[in-house]
């Protein structure tokens, strides 16, 4: 709930307005210009098929342990395309437990009150080290894991595998994990397909160095938030009552009469599984300095199928650590809840055919529930040199649904040339038309 004494500041959002992630994103497969009017080469790129996003549903899951429940071995791997863990020693297979049922996350959203924080989403202790050392139970050697980038390690001496499962206060261990379903080959194919649709004006160096095989599987930290809130908005709306023209010939002008209404709307709603980046760096969607909005776009994940934390799922993948606490993420949550409320009331003001200008808004958050999760993303990156260290372009594939989004650096002179050529052709047609008409 928002504290009335200290209204939370909005998150730093330096880029706003058209063309930024603060725009309500366009509907999928929408290009502002009709491709049929464009030259063949551009049209072919635009009309090529997109990578298909799979709808995934995981089977019912049961028990989860870090050691093989049958033989006790620690050499356990995740079987790709499923939520199954396989013991590399005795080939025993078993499934993790879904947090949805284990913690009752899908229920009682409308009765949610206060702030419920799951144990893995607790505040980060600034003193907690990200390096953790373990004493190998097999041989007694010291094994160190850097939780900034990995959650598992192998003892160099006796090949015992360790996973960080204890919920230490450094933010590294979440409540749940969603294992990869999309394999590397699939991800490579999707990235290739995505880039093949964007070759004509792509930066030459990017095309030359394009090696999608270098894609890395990474588990990124998110907070999955359930919320129960009420919002109220008020403003002015106009309904057209008359339309008429005055004057004649060149001075013919259209005028409108309208009724102005004071419009007030209120809506109570619950939100289920809203994902928010819980890493300060990933949450910064400033398109001038980074392309994190690409990773933001491949949300959402089928978080209903998330499994209870088990580090064995992360074997062979890298991970990033959470560094934001619930309170620091609250402004962003409230901002998104307000946006959702505005989208909800939009349907009730359709009769205002001259539009509505919302002037004030109010949000009361009755209850929130925060669960931290590691979500699987395939990331391909290309560093474009330039001012201030250049720009890191990402192409990201959702490790569950296969949704693909990317930023392909453009060859500016080519793009400018194409635009100028098109402009010149249009302009010559106009001039020709004016000459003929006069």
């Amino acid at each position, binding site marked *: 709930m928002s504290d009335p004494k200290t209204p939370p500041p909005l998150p730093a959002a330096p880029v706003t307005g058209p063309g930024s992630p603060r725009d309500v994103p366009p509907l999928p497969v929408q290009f502002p210009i009709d491709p049929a009017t464009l030259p063949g080469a551009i049209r072919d790129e635009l009309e090529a098929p997109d990578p298909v996003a799979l709808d995934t549903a995981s089977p019912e899951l049961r028990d989860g342990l870090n050691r093989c429940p049958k033989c006790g071995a620690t050499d356990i791997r995740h079987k790709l395309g499923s939520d199954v863990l396989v013991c590399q020693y005795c080939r025993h297979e078993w499934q993790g437990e879904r947090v949805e049922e284990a913690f009752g996350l899908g229920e009682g959203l409308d009765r949610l009150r206060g702030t419920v924080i799951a144990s893995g989403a607790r505040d980060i202790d600034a003193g907690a080290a990200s390096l953790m050392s373990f004493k190998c139970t097999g041989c007694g050697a010291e094994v160190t894991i850097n939780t900034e980038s990995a959650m598992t390690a192998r003892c160099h001496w006796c090949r015992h595998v360790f996973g960080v499962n204890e919920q230490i206060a450094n933010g590294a261990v979440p409540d749940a994990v969603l294992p990869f379903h999309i394999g590397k080959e699939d991800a490579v194919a999707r990235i290739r397909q995505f880039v093949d649709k964007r070759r004509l004006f792509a930066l030459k160096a990017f095309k030359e160095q394009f090696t999608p095989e270098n894609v890395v599987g990474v588990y990124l930290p998110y907070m999955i938030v359930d919320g129960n809130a009420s919002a109220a908005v008020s403003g002015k709306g106009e309904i057209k009552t008359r339309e008429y023209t005055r004057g004649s010939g060149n001075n013919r002008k259209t005028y*409108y009469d309208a009724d102005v209404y004071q419009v007030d709307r209120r809506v109570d709603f619950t939100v289920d599984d809203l994902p928010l980046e819980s890493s300060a760096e990933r949450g910064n969607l400033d398109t001038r300095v980074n392309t994190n909005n690409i990773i933001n776009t491949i949300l959402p994940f089928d978080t209903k199928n998330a499994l209870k934390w088990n580090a064995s799922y992360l074997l062979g993948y890298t991970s990033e650590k959470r560094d934001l606490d619930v309170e620091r993420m609250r402004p962003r949550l409230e901002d998104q809840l307000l946006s959702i409320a505005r989208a909800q009331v939009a349907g009730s003001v359709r009769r205002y055919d001259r539009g509505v200008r919302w002037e004030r808004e109010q949000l009361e958050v009755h209850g929130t529930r925060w669960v931290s999760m590691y979500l699987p993303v395939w990331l391909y990156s290309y560093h474009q040199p330039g001012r201030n260290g250049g720009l890191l372009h990402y192409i990201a594939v959702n490790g569950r649904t296969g949704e693909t989004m990317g930023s392909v650096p453009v060859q500016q002179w080519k793009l400018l040339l194409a635009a100028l050529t098109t402009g010149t052709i249009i302009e010559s047609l106009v001039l020709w038309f004016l000459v003929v008409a006069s």
Partner: protein
Amino acid sequence: MSDDGGLWLLAAGPIGATALYWALYRYYRNTDKSHAFERETTVEAKPVTGSDTLIDTVTGTRETRISGDNVHDYRARVRRDG
């Protein structure tokens, strides 16, 4: 075709060039994309309530929309009361 009515057509070239540049730039760089949480999140809302009061009339305006229309700009924040 009158002089006045034809001259504005001259803007078509620059406008067309700019439109194509931005459309292609966004198609490659996708700077305008983000998670569409407004329509991709499960939201259960109770029926919207509210009131509508006629407060004024406008006559003879040439604008086709109300000024500052933000009914579809869900993410544009306005003054927050609480």
